[in-house]
């Protein structure tokens, strides 16, 4: 790491390159100590950083210029025993030199190391103990590669080590530049590492930390999560963001600082709008669900959509336009929207309904709206929703990213599925994340979600290259970060982001009494076209999976849209049998047909 190198440079006589000192910008909240230094064993106050940096630079200059004067002992014999006074130590070194001349010290400030090139001098590779160097930390972080790679289960309590680092260095030949990768010889201890390797290390550390949490080894987890924090800042782009969010979530879990569930719904609505705009996932979801609904509504004169996830109503303008322009004329369109209560008691649902009504008037569609406020979908009842019977209107139920929340409480999902059945819909469109974040084992959930969200952040990065810092992208990251936090840090009824895969949902819907409806080629074509329009669109893939559509990034599916209809009801079949019986009885003995024998009756029952 850069920091280490800087310190070591100060101690060696070989530092001929410019000494670049990275100054930690803001003082950390950690009792004023610089966190990064602290983990390595040095206690440096953040407020002193500038001074220390200055002095280190002076020291280097002094060494460089007075090298011939035999201060080379500084490079080999200098051992720093008192980590709490780094600046004092450097000062003493300086005064040892005959430094009467004033140095022209210009502290060089580099930007965030994450943006530096990969020519960093830092640790050696994964070999924990290097022959020429012994580095001991507070916790034996050598356990990281071991556990994560070998899974050897050696996360025991760490032996006590000295709280400060003892660093010895080979003396490098004078005048040599050791920044150059190519010129490193085997004798030289400084070895190159690049950010890619740090990236691998980062992933391993994250997994090891999760494993430590799984085994309830909180001390190790604590050290690892700090280590992850250090490594994360050396990365750039998507990797960095993902690691930061996961590290934060892990830290919350370890320290039991659970996020307040004060998700003001207006705030989360806003976040979802930014998510809608920055990437195609939600648009894909809306367009494919709309296509299924449109096809189900073919030929109907009155249609009713029940939306479990109204938010700002972004899904409906497209459907309303398609209905308004459909050949044969527009139907009467009724929308029932369900949403959570607002903290300030404003009627957000009604406002959305009003806007949609204005749109409907503009395009010439008859429109009615009703809003329902509910804390959870399980509180709803079909009878509340005023669903007209089948011959008066055709009903569609729509749920985008809402059903998985019900899995947090037992019985929730079954109640809702039963209510849906009671509404007698012609079609139920469901869009869910394609991932299993609801396993019983924390570690599995963690690994799954790490892969899932890394893929999403990757896709964001590729498609956002023209506008990386726009508000949309930043807010989208916040939106995803909240999900990550919920998946990793929360438990029990608070953990609402319980995503499940399409096959799991299929099983659930099947056993609840629904049959799948194939989405058709129109939806597929429209989705493909939509994706082709997106900048960076060549990474997105639309796949058809047994009648459902999945949108993914490269090979990984991320969102799945599926459509369902009610299974034909059993009561109808029973009715048919008794109807048959009745007709036979009615026709009486003159009936040329034979009366139903007992065997015939049972055969018929079996058939239905």
């Amino acid at each position, binding site marked *: 790491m850069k920091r280490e190198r800087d310190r070591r440079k100060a101690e060696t006589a070989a530092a001929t390159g410019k000494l670049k000192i990275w100054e930690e910008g803001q003082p950390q909240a950690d009792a004023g100590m610089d966190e990064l230094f602290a983990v390595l064993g040095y206690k440096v106050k953040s407020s002193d950083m500038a001074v220390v940096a200055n002095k280190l630079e002076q020291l280097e200059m002094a060494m460089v210029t007075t090298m011939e004067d035999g201060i080379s002992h500084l490079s080999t014999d200098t051992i720093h025993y008192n980590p709490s006074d780094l600046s004092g130590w450097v000062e003493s070194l300086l005064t040892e030199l005959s430094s009467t001349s004033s140095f022209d010290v210009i502290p060089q400030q580099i930007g965030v190391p994450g943006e530096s090139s990969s020519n960093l001098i830092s640790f050696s590779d994964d070999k924990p103990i290097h022959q020429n160097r012994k580095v001991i930390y507070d916790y034996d972080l050598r356990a990281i590669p071991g556990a994560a790679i070998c899974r050897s289960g050696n996360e025991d309590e760490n032996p006590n080590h000295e709280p400060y680092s003892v660093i010895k260095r080979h003396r490098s030949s004078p005048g040599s530049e050791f920044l150059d990768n190519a010129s490193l010889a085997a004798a030289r201890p400084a070895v190159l590492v690049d950010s890619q390797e740090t990236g691998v290390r980062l992933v391993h550390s994250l997994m090891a930390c999760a494993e430590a949490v799984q085994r309830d080894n909180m001390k190790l987890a604590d050290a690892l999560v700090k280590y992850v924090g250090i490594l994360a800042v050396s990365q750039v782009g998507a990797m960095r963001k993902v690691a930061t969010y996961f590290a934060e979530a892990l830290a919350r879990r370890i320290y039991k600082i659970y996020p307040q569930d004060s998700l003001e719904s207006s705030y989360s609505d806003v976040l979802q709008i930014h998510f809608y705009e920055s990437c195609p996932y939600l648009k894909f979801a809306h367009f494919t669900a709309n296509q299924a609904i449109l096809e189900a509504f073919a030929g109907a004169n009155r249609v009713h959509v029940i939306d479990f996830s109204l938010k700002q109503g972004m899904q409906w303008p497209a459907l309303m336009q398609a209905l308004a322009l459909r050949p044969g004329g527009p139907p009467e369109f009724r929308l029932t929207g369900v949403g959570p209560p607002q903290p300030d008691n404003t009627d957000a649902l009604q406002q959305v309904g009003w*806007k949609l009504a204005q749109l409907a008037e503009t395009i010439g569609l008859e429109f009615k709206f009703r809003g329902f406020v509910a804390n959870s979908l399980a509180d709803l009842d079909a009878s509340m929703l005023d669903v007209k019977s089948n011959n008066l209107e055709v009903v569609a139920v729509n749920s985008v990213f809402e059903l998985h929340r019900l899995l947090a409480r037992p019985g929730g999902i079954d109640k809702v599925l039963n209510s849906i059945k009671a509404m007698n819909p012609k079609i139920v469109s469901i869009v869910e994340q394609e991932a299993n974040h609801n396993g019983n084992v924390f570690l599995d959930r963690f690994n799954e979600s790490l892969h899932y969200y890394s893929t999403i952040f990757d896709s964001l990065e590729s*498609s956002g290259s023209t506008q990386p810092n726009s508000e949309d992208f930043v807010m989208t990251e916040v939106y995803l970060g909240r999900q990550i936090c919920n998946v990793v840090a929360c438990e029990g009824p608070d953990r609402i982001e319980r995503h499940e895969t399409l096959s799991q949902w299929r099983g659930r819907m099947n056993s609840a009494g629904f049959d799948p409806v194939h989405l058709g080629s129109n939806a597929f074509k429209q989705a493909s076209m939509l994706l082709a329009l997106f900048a*960076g669109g060549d990474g997105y893939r639309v796949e058809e999976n047994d009648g459902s559509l999945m949108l993914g990034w490269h090979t990984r599916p991320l969102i799945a849209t599926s459509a369902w209809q009610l299974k034909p009801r059993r009561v109808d079949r029973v009715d048919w049998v008794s109807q048959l019986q009745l007709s036979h009885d009615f026709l009486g003995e003159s009936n040329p047909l034979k009366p139903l024998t007992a065997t015939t009756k049972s055969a018929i029952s079996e058939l239905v």
Partner: protein
Amino acid sequence: MAKFCINDNVDVLIEVLKRLDDRSLGVAACVCKTWCSLTRNDSFWEHMCFRQLSPPPEGVRAVVVALGGYRRLYICCVKPVREVREFNRVWTRHEMELSLSLFCVDYYERVLLGGGGGSGGGRLGSDSAASASLMLLCKAVNV
């Protein structure tokens, strides 16, 4: 012999302008005030949108006009979609439907959502002609 001035024969002028592509139409709009007001006529842009398509069903015009007009439809939705497609490829009904849907979403965002809520002004970005949701369409696709 009287000199022929095209501006006196507006119907001929219209026929000529109808056959131009979008860029040339824009250039033509800069010629003089007469030409400018002519090219702002939405029917040119309707022709541009539906040129390769059989006549659209009844009612499309009313909807499009209500949502902002054919010129806006062309600039915001049709043109970007065409640019992504291969040159000279026939413009299909599906693409038209998609454009119309996106146009409707654009209207909703721009007119109805854009004014209210916390996510208002800052979202619209550099291109004032398109709402944020369509900005990804308007950018050149640098794949």
